[in-house]
């Protein structure tokens, strides 16, 4: 659409915070009990980062790719698109990320977890556990309904944080896989910011943290050796 350039970010917020958070309540209600499967997938991914067969990296990437596709359809197209005209574009970004995860990780096998865990790797695992266990509780702690939990595997924000954690925990930093999740951190941060949500800075800070650790890891002389 032309004319987008003429708007401020706050002008583009086309729904109220109540409508936004209510979306997750309705989404969770419609998905139940599928959340058990996605959370189980999360627990499985966490376990596989520490031990498992040599092809576990491919399996993790395949599961993540499926989850990104699921969020693209289930959340962005089926739910968010009703109140946000930009949602189909976000869905497209999630589909592209799913394809990248499938190709780079599942098919080409470039995501591995064989090397000893560096500090960056440990931060990655911690970030994944944060996305799986603690991030969904942020909304409840801020006074929102418990059935509006944003969960890893079904809601975009914890899914993105969890994925960034896994990518940080892998033996090599794959920058091509970091771009879209980092971009989403900025987009969702801007959305929450114009809604005056208290947790608006969380996702941008996570994105920044990941980029800093990823850069440090990429520049480290040990990087080329670890895991390859």
């Amino acid at each position: 659409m032309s004319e987008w350039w003429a708007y401020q970010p706050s002008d583009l917020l086309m729904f109220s915070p109540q409508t936004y958070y209510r979306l997750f309540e309705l989404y969770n209600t419609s998905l139940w009990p599928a959340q058990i499967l996605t959370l189980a997938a999360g627990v499985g991914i966490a376990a596989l980062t520490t031990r498992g067969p040599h092809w576990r990296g491919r399996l993790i990437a395949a599961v993540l790719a499926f989850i990104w596709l699921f969020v693209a359809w289930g959340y962005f197209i089926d739910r968010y698109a009703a109140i946000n005209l930009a949602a189909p574009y976000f869905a497209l970004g999630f589909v592209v990320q799913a394809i990248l995860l499938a190709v780079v990780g599942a098919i080409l096998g470039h995501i591995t977890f064989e090397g000893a865990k560096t500090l960056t790797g440990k931060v990655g695992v911690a970030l994944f556990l944060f996305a799986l266990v603690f991030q969904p509780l942020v909304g409840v702690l801020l006074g929102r309904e418990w059935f509006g939990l944003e969960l890893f595997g079904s809601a975009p924000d914890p899914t993105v944080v969890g994925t960034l954690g896994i990518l940080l925990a892998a033996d090599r930093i794959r920058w091509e896989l970091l771009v879209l999740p980092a971009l989403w951190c900025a987009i969702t941060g801007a959305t929450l910011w114009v809604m005056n949500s208290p947790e608006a800075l969380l996702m941008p800070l996570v994105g920044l943290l990941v980029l800093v650790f990823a850069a440090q890891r990429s520049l480290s002389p040990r990087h080329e050796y670890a895991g390859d």
Partner: protein
Amino acid sequence: MQLNRRQLFGLLAAGGLTALAPRFGRAQGAPLTKRIPSSGEALPIVGLGSWITFNVGDDPEARDSSAEVMQAFFDGGGRMIDSSPMYGSAQEVIGYCLRKTGTSANVFATDKVWTGNGGEGPGQIERTRALWGIDRFDLLQVHNLVAWEAHLDTLSAMKNDGKLRYVGITTSHGRRHNELEKIMHEHDLDFVQLTYNIVDREVEDRLLPLAQEKGIAVIANRPFRRKELIHRFEDEKLPEWADDIGAASWAQFLLKFVIAHPAITCAIPATTRVDHVRENLTSAREPLPDEEMRRRMVAYIREL
């Protein structure tokens, strides 16, 4: 010299002859009305916007709340409801509310065409009409001047064919006023919609006088800058003389300022609350501030 109705109302409004014509009309218990210059039709001076407030998707509770807001709006004598294809699910929710409340006959249905491709206009308008579930719109406007030449052609043709009653064009947030002014000079418009409130008053210089001169009705959007102005002043005391204009709250103070301007035909505050709809419609009653009082209101706001 013979004058048509548009020219007559335009002259009355622009030439200091307003004292010769009633500024406002009002049925018993209903909000004040003003005349649409091109037709003389009376329109309640407070309408209902739908940006954000009616974009509630498929949330059944929120949709029913929206229907309650709409019912209160019509119960209070309101008529104009304004929306746009840019407003997400708002058009569909409006259609739901009209069906649920059985109020399609009451509405002055106002929407917009918003696509950068002029050829897509008729299709978008038809989809919009189906979402509202009405036979035809009272007013369609070119949203934010997007592809305005092609869309104005489409809307004018619809009006000539009897498929539309009024044609308009919109802007908001103070954008593209020079271009809007040129269009107002060169094209036959029934309505313009623009941003006007007690702090965004740039349109007072040229666009509002031009609308009066040309006999174009004016819809004021963002009378509260969404909620910003109310939040900005809510901790401040209303002046004692607010009673003189019948303003019991900041919302009424701000809204009365807008709708009292002689060029403004209708303001379209948006809300999700029944009590706010009633408060807004109550603003559309005498007394309204005269020009001197409006200057005093501006001065008071500047001091806060």
